[in-house]
């Protein structure tokens, strides 16, 4: 297996609330990544086709109407859109990890999930990760994932996993990803922000040092000895639907995509305020040095004292079902 890889984050705006328009644009971005020679491309949190940037700023009543808009532009996994995305990934020879609003595939349900879709460049839909616990008012918009969403996927470039936004602050979930054997980690976010005194009061600010993304992904890389490809939203003002301009007071989409190595150092510093593919060349061999010094799965662990319980079944209306296929651990 080649150890030199070219990985990148798609810091591009979707066509907000527009499923067909977003699909068309996404295929173009994947083609562009192919021309750049990327092995892996990561799109931001619920890039397909809306993040609720109005959350926290509109009444709960109004948010209900907007949930319906999110439903209308969401995709199913698998579905027509994932088929087209997988075909594009195959044509461009780029593995893709894509944040989306996922409409429940359970007949009768219209619940949305905050989901990452994993597509291999062999044209296969590898699976999905649903955010386990939406953050604060996000709970109004999205359901919760379960144990079947704690997954790492075998790609030709290694074992690739992903977490969504504040999942990076969930101690046990980070540990679970390491236990599943993750080698390359995809981190997705709605943007980049400044924090003042407490986490509820965020404002968009390119390059803000108070943003919790930077310590989270750098620590993630050190703790789990992985590379991190971090993908953040950038939403040019012209792409905001006119009806939402006043309500999107929580618009944090100023970019901030970046790439970190297993020593926790930036291979590519965060990039702000432009639609672009943020990419870098990485050498998987760098994991060896990190693991030689600190291996959370081996010589630095005390599994005799501390071990992690990870459910081996998923919840369904008719009871727990064993988790089949995909993933490790």
């Amino acid at each position, binding site marked *: 297996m080649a150890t030199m890889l070219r990985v990148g984050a798609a810091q591009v705006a979707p066509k907000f609330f527009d499923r067909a328009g977003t699909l068309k644009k996404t295929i173009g971005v994947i083609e562009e990544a192919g021309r750049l020679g990327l092995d892996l491309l990561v799109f931001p949190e619920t890039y397909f086709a809306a993040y609720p940037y109005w*959350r*926290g*700023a*509109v*009444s*709960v*009543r109004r948010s209900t109407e907007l949930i319906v808009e999110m439903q209308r532009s969401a995709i199913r996994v698998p579905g027509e859109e994932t088929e087209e995305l997988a075909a594009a990934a195959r044509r461009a020879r780029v593995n893709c990890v894509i944040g989306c609003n996922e409409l429940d595939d359970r007949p009768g349900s219209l619940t949305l999930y905050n989901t990452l879709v994993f597509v291999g460049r062999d044209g296969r839909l590898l699976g999905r990760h649903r955010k386990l616990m939406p953050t*604060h*008012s996000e*709970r*109004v918009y999205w359901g919760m994932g379960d144990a079947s969403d704690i997954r790492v996927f075998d790609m030709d470039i290694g074992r690739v996993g992903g977490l969504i936004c504040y999942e990076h602050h969930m101690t046990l979930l980070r540990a679970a990803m390491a236990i599943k054997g993750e080698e390359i980690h995809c981190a997705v976010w709605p943007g980049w922000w400044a924090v003042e005194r407490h986490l*509820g*009061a965020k404002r968009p600010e390119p390059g803000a040092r108070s943003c919790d993304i930077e310590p989270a992904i750098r620590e993630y890389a050190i703790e789990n000895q992985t590379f991190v490809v971090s993908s953040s939203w950038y939403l040019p003002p012209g792409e905001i639907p006119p009806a939402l301009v006043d309500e999107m007071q929580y618009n944090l989409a100023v970019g901030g995509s970046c790439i970190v190595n297993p020593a926790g150092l930036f291979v590519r510093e965060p990039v702000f305020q432009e639609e672009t593919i943020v990419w870098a060349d990485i050498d998987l061999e760098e994991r060896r040095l990190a693991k030689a010094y600190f291996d959370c799965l081996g010589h630095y662990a005390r599994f005799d004292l501390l071990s992690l*319980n990870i459910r081996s079944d998923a919840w369904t209306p008719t*009871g727990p079902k064993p988790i089949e296929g995909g993933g490790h651990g």
Partner: protein
Amino acid sequence: MYLNRAATVDKACDLIREAGRGGAQLVAFPEVFVPGFPHWIYLDRPQANERHFVELVREAVEVPGPATDALGRAARDASAYVVIGINERSRRSAGELFNTNLIFAPDGALLGWHRKLMPTYAEKMIWSFGDGSTLRVHDTAIGRLGTLCCGENTNPLARFALIAQGEQVHVANYPARPAGDAVDLRYNIQIRSAAHAFEGKCFVVVAGSLISPEMREFLGDTPEKRRLLGDGSQTFTGILGPNGKVLAGPAADDAEEIVYGTIDLEAIIGQKIHHDVAGNYNRFDVLSLTLNRSPLTAIREVMAAPAGMEITGPETWRLLGELRRRAGSASPEELRALVESLLASLPAGPPDA
């Protein structure tokens, strides 16, 4: 006494004693009565509401604690069972709350509690969710008693879990909504209470809250919020019989009132003849429910027994089972005898530490 734990507990205790004097053997209070329902979640932006959350945590109830001691004393004074909704403070986290119904026995003991399994919609910003360990029906002198909070009364599987444990008296409690609200809460509560009564062939005691003028004053600090709050409440407080009919109440819209009713548990039998979903009207070979009793805990601590001290004897396990079955009903003397046999069944003396 909105967002004031001590004053609300005092008020609840006074009401329990008053209901006791009125002959009540069961007293039910609204959802999260102590120290009140976070109506602000429907009035303002989430970020603007965070200061209220801090106040709510500060005035929430520790279980057990001084507030539950006081409520227990009032239950004893009234010789009544009490089901009361509280905001319960988490013991593991300084910023975590549960939406909990406490159940007190007439001797003042805390008989049990139920944590709401899934907060509804914007309530998810306030409360963590409960688990199956509290989805229980309690054997009491006034019948088998169960309770669900608010929207849980529309969760068919949660309702069936109580019905299938032989529930005879069900307490459903609710907050109030503004009178002009698009949600017709009064109608909704009556429909679902009647449905539960009819399906379970049980009595349903419903307690709903009010939005008092003082609460409107406190919550309505902008014209928009005052518009949303309107000038009245809608809720439902009353008692329904196992045929689904309202047999007491409902209370008037905006006046505080204790609704009294008399129930006859024997009336359940006649209803069950026709339609018993916990028994002869079901097909458990085709459909049955799985209830996960495991408490949700952040850590599972394990400690191996010292060598020679493993509890492996069948007699020890038999006695432990008996203790569990009879813990709620055995007399102190019987309990003492059981514990003594249990100890006697263990291997002799522990090795020196």
